[in-house]
């Protein structure tokens, strides 16, 4: 099977950023929180590859440390959204028509609430924090996962091999485990990358607004906010986190497109 270029590019981008996050966890060129007032706004140099910010902190180190917060938050949101969405979706596919109609209608209302709006309301209630942002993003994105999973699972449950398995005596749990979950795998991976791209954007935006990751933890969104006031002095400073955020989201989108092509070669 020929690998699609989107898949390769997506894997490379996401792999590189995750590598940066893992490395940032154990080693950064400088301590990302150390303030050094003697060399603020340093341009590029061999000591500071991307220069220093308004407090003399090494930009590359903050970016690396921030990637951990941003990617870990996105990963956690993906796990919540997939766990919730998959269970509700499969439940809706297996229960009676009427119960299914009720679940679907409820989910359709949930679709009207974008991740950021849910996060704003939850932040208003419980105060800003990374955890609240993760829960809000996971909750808000789980509705579309549930709806897609529901229709996919219904289709799989109607296939002849599932009916054959049922005649052979398999109960619902067995059918779900052996047939539904396995055949959902393509849809799961594609949706997870979609949720990841939404989650990265939402986490960055919330932290930018001061309603997500709080100081002193470094995050890409907070970098954007704290460097924006110096935009007239050093326009490059806010462009670094902007670039990394855009790259991460684009990587997730490429990964999703690539996975879709990989699982369904008729698309290309």
């Amino acid at each position, binding site marked *: 099977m020929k690998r699609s270029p989107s898949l390769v590019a997506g894997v490379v981008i996401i792999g590189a950023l995750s590598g940066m996050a893992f490395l940032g966890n154990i080693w950064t060129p400088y301590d990302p929180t150390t303030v050094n007032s003697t060399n603020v706004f340093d341009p590029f140099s061999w000591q500071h590859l991307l220069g220093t910010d308004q407090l003399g902190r090494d930009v590359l180190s903050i970016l690396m440390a921030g990637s951990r917060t941003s990617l870990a938050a996105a990963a956690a949101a993906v796990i919540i959204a997939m766990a919730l969405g998959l269970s509700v979706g499969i439940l809706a596919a297996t229960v009676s028509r009427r119960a299914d109609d009720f679940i679907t209608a409820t989910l359709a209302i949930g679709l009207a609430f974008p991740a950021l709006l849910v996060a704003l309301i939850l932040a208003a209630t419980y105060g800003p924090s990374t955890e609240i942002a993760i829960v809000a993003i996971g909750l808000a994105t789980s509705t579309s996962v549930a709806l897609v999973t529901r229709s996919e699972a219904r289709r799989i449950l109607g296939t002849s091999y599932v009916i054959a398995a049922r005649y052979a005596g398999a109960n619902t749990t067995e059918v779900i485990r052996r047939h539904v979950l396995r055949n959902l795998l393509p849809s799961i991976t594609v949706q997870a990358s979609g949720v990841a791209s939404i989650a990265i*954007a939402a986490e960055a935006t919330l932290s930018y607004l001061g309603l997500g990751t709080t100081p002193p933890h470094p995050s890409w969104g907070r970098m954007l906010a704290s460097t924006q006031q110096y935009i007239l002095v050093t326009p490059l400073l806010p462009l670094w986190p902007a670039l990394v*955020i855009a790259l991460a989201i684009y990587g997730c989108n490429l990964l999703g497109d690539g996975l879709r092509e990989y699982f369904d070669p008729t698309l290309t």
Partner: protein
Amino acid sequence: MSGVLRRLAVSGAGILGSTFFVFALLRVLPGDLATAKLGTDATPEALQRLRSEYGLDKPLFTQYVQWLGNAMRGDFGSSLMSGSDVGSDIVSRLDVTLPLIVASSLLAVMAALWLGQRSALQRSNWKSVVLTLASQIGLAIPIVVLGIVAVVIFAVWLRILPAGGFPVDGWRATGSAIRSLVLPVAVLSLSQAAMLTRFARSEALDFIASDTYRTARATGMTKPQSISTARRLLLVPVLGVLALQISTLIVGAVVVENVFALPGLGAMLVRDIAARDYLKVQGSLLVVTTIVFTVQFATGVLQERLDPRRRTT
């Protein structure tokens, strides 16, 4: 006519339901309004006095009805932090937010219709590549990143537009007010137009495959002329998507107002959330939900007027 009435009822129920949801959520907190205002070391008597002053000792539903009744008469209460009147705060903020939202939606719809028709006609040249790339960027990049990049390019490097802020005189300084809204509107409408263009394009492609288009071509019209006969046909689904996306658009406005330091409702909402000024958050969210449901109601009615086939359903 009954269709309009039914829509009105649905919108009303939607506003009531979602505001009650927000109201209840803000009330079931561990620390209530009184502790938020007076702090945790306040005496029980002082807390009790404040609770009865704000009606917090009454049942939740009674509180909601009372608050909503007052809000309908324009009384949103006063801010817990600054003591200013919430209603007039919101009204003064709408001066910036409403023009921002309306201009962005109009621009996004017009751009989507035009680009959708264009890209449906020319499927394989460099223009369509540029269009697809632009819509990919608009879809993929969050508004906050788009906004900051726009500031760097147009305000710092090219120096043709302000980096943010709004004239103190408001709309009386018309020229500079418009100038300070150019970048915010552009950023907000780009992210919306990217989504809408995809729908407009697929509708336009359907139309090109239809007999109507073939007949129009057969009468001697050029391709652009023929496709422009379907303007109404394309507008109806695009409006539908816009109505579905209106809450995304408003959240986008919240972000844009913060990026460009505009004194709008969204910027105020974020500040109030951070300061835990519940009464103001409640009031702002009531206004936001009312805008969302009003827009959905209006687009529904507009769609029926534009497309007679929808009237019977």
